[in-house]
């Protein structure tokens, strides 16, 4: 909302308060200032000039040469391209040395050989609206030679204010003025509304029938005859322009002005176009339609409140009028409506019609049924003054459902306890009284107030405490640190292990990525996700198709990440993501959410260095990171061949913990790499973390450091290619007895000598006893058992 300081000063005396102090105070009262504008700040030396003569330019068709009196000793000769002025007109005139908005300086210059000593201005050149068609013709009563800036309201300051949704009563000039008057303890002056009512009573001219009082608690109206529609006076236009509105005609301008002034929306109907000249406030009928002022035809539903005449709907109540009964240049009699509509109903209708207006925004925040009365009187008085209207005697005031007057009790001690700041009981009461609350009963400890009807936001004690806090000033409130008593309940047991895991992975040289959690069917398919994972939680109103679902897997995001960064010249990728995935498996009204870990490796693992060639990431780099991660988590897992569609067959594994598959990893499938347009030498992993993180890791127990030396022996055996090398290590461990402390697979060897389809696998076996140094004989016995096991189970032969 744009609040003009000049306008504000009509309602409250702000003398002695600088613009800076005022802005600070408004901010500290909760009137958030988004910007402060001084539209005429740069305008200097622009005066009211009177055109004395207009002569053609000898050498230019489109330019005329004027003599203009700006109050100086001699009239100025000014060349001008405008056409809309005549001799005797008064226009804003910038003399030599003047400046205009944008820092534009006026100098003496020649136009086609003729000297020009200044410039006569259009409205746009002064920052007043967009009218660039011709000069701004000033009212004839503006004194020649006077500074045009204050006369045009250009000495103003505009505060751009954001009104919070709870304070509908602030959304007007009087609303802001009332707050400042209360704070500075100065009187609020509301303009008087003198009316010379005609003898003709309104009761003979029209009637109002409210069929739905729960949606329309109050309806007021006046009839104005002999209305002369025309342009508004300069002061009214200036006010509207300062508020950012375009003047239209005096009738419309007056309703807009009163809306800005009082915050109360009015609607003017062309009385002669209302069937039977009467008003019916009712719900729309099934199948009814209306063409609104914006020219759109809109179907109405039966839960929408409308204003109808004796025949049909003329207005969507509180939102927008219909074009049929719109006030036009031909209007002579106006029926003026001022009403109170149910906020929830206006909001619902506005939403359903996707129609938001100044009026609907105010009604849905809750209007003031008292202000409805003043707004109507104010508009009638202005129409009488400006449009020459004859006001019919009396007003209609149907008030079927007065809002209950709220009473709220404030306990002074409670206020101080909640604010943690001692505020005197007298100060507490004083703030509320200044804000228009009236005291009903009081004692030393408490005070009960009547709440003014405009304050829809106040219904309980806390609401009063907030008022006291605002006026006392948040900046003057005490500061203390609470003695926090932590809760014994642990709310997020996974938080710390998850954080430790992330830092473990970062310490392994992986960079953390953090993606939007959206996905889409196409990416899921491109990534080769299983059909179950392509069934995702969908959004009803996504930002775009690309963010149409909630991700079921981290893999599509990681593949897009690879494409994004490889396209931008990244040489290698080593990243991980820890984040949620979702599935449309509903439990307790919500879809399932799980925490997953994703990893992505590609390109040189050690960067390039002058000392040697780079090594590229491969399957075993990823598997090693996975093994280290599992070990960090304290989890034992096995790996099994998988057929997951994301990965290349043969480099495609499931991660199995217990009997549960908790993840997959491998080299990206060529088809997936092609679909994402990336290099296929890329390794991906996804692991479900929830069950792994929630398995409380037991506290590590110390085991004694061995006193006796280990005995290390190698064993190389030849087996069929089909035998997994890892199986030999597992078998060795099983057969080695308690003396075997570790088995390390340290070499795989193939040669012609071994024969086709054969490989040699070398194990390093480490034996150790807790109570003695092992003899060769002790070791040999175990070594023989292991060999026998490998021979029996895998037809291994000693190499």
């Amino acid at each position, binding site marked *: 909302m744009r609040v003009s300081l000049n306008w504000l000063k009509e309602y409250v005396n702000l003398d002695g308060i600088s613009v800076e102090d005022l802005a600070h105070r408004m901010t500290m009262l909760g009137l958030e200032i988004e910007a402060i504008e001084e539209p005429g700040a740069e305008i200097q030396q622009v005066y009211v000039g009177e055109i004395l003569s207009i002569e053609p330019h000898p050498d230019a068709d489109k330019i005329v040469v004027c003599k203009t009196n700006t109050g100086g000793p001699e009239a100025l000769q000014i060349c001008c391209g405008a056409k809309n002025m005549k001799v005797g007109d008064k226009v804003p005139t910038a003399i030599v040395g003047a400046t205009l908005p944008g820092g534009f300086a006026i100098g003496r210059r020649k136009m086609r050989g003729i000297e020009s000593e200044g410039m006569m201005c259009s409205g746009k050149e002064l920052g007043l609206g967009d009218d660039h068609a011709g000069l701004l013709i000033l009212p004839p009563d503006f004194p020649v030679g006077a500074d045009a800036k204050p006369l045009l309201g250009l000495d103003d300051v505009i505060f751009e204010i954001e009104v919070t949704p709870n304070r509908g009563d602030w959304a007007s000039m009087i609303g802001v003025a009332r707050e400042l008057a209360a704070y500075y303890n100065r009187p609020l002056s509301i303009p008087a509304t003198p009316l010379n009512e005609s003898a003709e009573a309104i009761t003979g001219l029209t009637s109002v029938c409210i069929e739905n009082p729960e949606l329309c608690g109050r309806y007021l109206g006046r009839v104005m005859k002999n209305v002369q529609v025309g342009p508004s006076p300069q002061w009214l236009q200036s006010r509207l322009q300062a508020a950012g509105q375009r003047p239209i005609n005096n009738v419309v301008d007056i309703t807009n002005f009163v809306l800005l002034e009082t915050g109360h929306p009015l609607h003017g109907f062309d009385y002669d176009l209302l069937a039977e000249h009467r008003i019916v406030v009712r719900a729309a009928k099934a199948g009814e339609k209306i063409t609104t002022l914006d020219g759109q035809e809109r179907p109405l539903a039966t839960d929408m409140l409308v204003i109808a005449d004796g025949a049909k709907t003329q207005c969507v109540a509180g939102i927008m009028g219909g074009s049929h009964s719109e006030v036009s240049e031909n209007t002579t009699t106006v029926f003026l409506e001022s009403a109170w509509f149910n906020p929830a109903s206006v909001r619902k209708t506005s939403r359903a019609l996707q129609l938001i207006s100044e009026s609907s925004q105010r009604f849905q925040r809750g209007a003031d049924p008292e202000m409805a009365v003043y707004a109507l009187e104010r508009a009638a008085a202005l129409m009488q003054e400006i449009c020459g209207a004859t006001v019919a005697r009396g007003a209609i005031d149907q008030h079927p459902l007065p809002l209950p007057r709220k009473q709220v009790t404030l306990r002074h001690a409670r206020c101080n306890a909640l604010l943690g700041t001692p505020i005197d009981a007298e100060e507490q009461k004083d703030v509320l009284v200044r804000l228009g609350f009236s005291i009903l009963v009081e004692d030393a400890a408490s005070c009960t107030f009547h709440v003014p009807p405009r304050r829809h936001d106040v219904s309980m004690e806390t609401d009063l405490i907030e008022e006291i806090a605002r006026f006392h000033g948040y900046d003057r409130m*005490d500061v*203390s640190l609470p003695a926090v008593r932590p809760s014994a309940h642990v709310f997020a047991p996974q938080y710390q292990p998850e954080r430790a895991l992330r830092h473990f992975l970062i310490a392994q040289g992986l960079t953390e990525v953090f993606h939007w959690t959206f996905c889409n069917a196409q990416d899921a398919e491109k990534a080769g996700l299983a059909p179950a994972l392509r069934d995702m939680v969908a959004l009803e109103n996504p930002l775009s198709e690309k963010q149409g679902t909630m991700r079921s897997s981290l893999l599509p995001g990681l593949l897009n990440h690879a494409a994004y960064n490889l396209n931008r010249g990244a040489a290698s990728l080593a990243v991980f993501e820890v984040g949620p995935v979702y599935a449309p498996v509903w439990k307790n009204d919500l879809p399932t959410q799980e925490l997953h870990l994703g990893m992505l490796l590609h390109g040189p693992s050690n960067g390039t260095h002058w000392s040697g060639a780079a090594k590229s990431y491969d399957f075993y780099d990823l598997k090693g990171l996975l093994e280290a991660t599992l070990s960090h988590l304290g989890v034992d897992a096995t790996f099994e061949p998988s057929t997951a569609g994301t990965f290349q067959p043969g480099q495609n594994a499931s991660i199995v913990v217990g009997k549960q598959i908790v993840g997959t990893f491998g080299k990206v499938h060529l088809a997936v790499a092609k679909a994402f347009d990336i290099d296929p030498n890329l390794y991906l992993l996804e692991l479900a973390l929830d069950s792994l993180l929630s398995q409380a890791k037991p506290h590590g127990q110390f085991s004694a450091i061995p006193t006796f030396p280990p005995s290390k022996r190698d064993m190389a055996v030849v087996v069929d290619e089909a035998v997994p090398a890892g199986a030999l290590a597992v078998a060795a461990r099983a057969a080695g007895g308690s003396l075997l402390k570790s088995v390390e697979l340290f070499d795989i060897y193939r040669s012609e000598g071994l024969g086709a389809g054969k490989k040699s696998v070398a194990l390093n076996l480490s034996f150790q006893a807790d109570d003695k140094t092992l003899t060769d004989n002790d070791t040999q016995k175990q070594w023989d058992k292991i060999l026998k096991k490998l021979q029996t189970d895998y037809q291994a032969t000693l190499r």
Partner: protein
Amino acid sequence: MKAALEALESGALDEIAGIDDLKILEESRVKYLGRNGQVTGILRGLATVSAEERPAMGQAANRVKQAIADALDAKKDTLEAAAFEKQTTAEAVDLSLPGRRPRPGHAHLIPQVADEIVDIFRELGFQVATGPDIETEYYNFDALNTPADHPARDSHDTFFVKPGVVLRTHTSPVQMRVMEKVQPPVAVVVPGRVYRVDYDASHSPMFYQFEGLLVDEGVSFADLKGTLMHFLERYFGPGHKVRFRPHFFPFTEPSAEVDISCTMCKGAGCRVCKHSGWLEVLGCGMVHPEVFKHANYDYEKYSGFAFGMGVDRLAMLRHAISSIGHLYENDLRFLEQF
């Protein structure tokens, strides 16, 4: 025998003087002083010498042994020094060549900053709580004093999964989930993803929030001020002015927005702060009685405060990041800066 000793000594010393190789020097030590060496042989021969001559001869033999040993040691030192000299020349490095750097991983800025904020509040006694990204409208709105016809629910910025189920628009629903589990005291902070239908240079449809809730007997607005001023000083460092000003949130009252003096212009006014000198960094307030009612907390007995802030915004302000897009594009050239 004396003559033999003298010949041995001079021969050995001459020989040692001529050696320029550590290996040959070692052979020479064996030759003279080894178990079967020449000096050892002579010392063994002392047994055959008469008893009167034995002390003198023994003394002489030992002196020769010592002289040869000294010469060997001295020569060893010389040769080792020369060898080391040669090695240093051969192994001298080019200091200008780059080292072999380990490639450190980087924490993404959002969780990194969130962790930091968690730590600041954990020091004060708060603990972490979390909740689901996909929420019921009840927890996201109704339980937070924002019923269906509430003006604050007007903004069309909520992603819907189906009627009654939304992507949470703030982390505040976790307040109610926590309060439903336990009676006061409650002191939790809630980091988490939140979602709004909004996308431009300063808005992302998914962003990251940080929520806090303290409920106990006697918690006051002064406590709220103190807690957040402490936090802001820890996060932004000393020397920033902090301003609490009234605002409106349905689930707190009194409510406030908190500004700090602009991190760019130090309050003088610039484009980042829209020439106001202030930057809004968080919203907060005293927990609304209606929220306590939903949680079955006794409003007369307990009071509390809640606050919420955008981790994205806090990160962008402190690290001078111009567009929120950088945080979610995951361009490695961005990620590796932090």
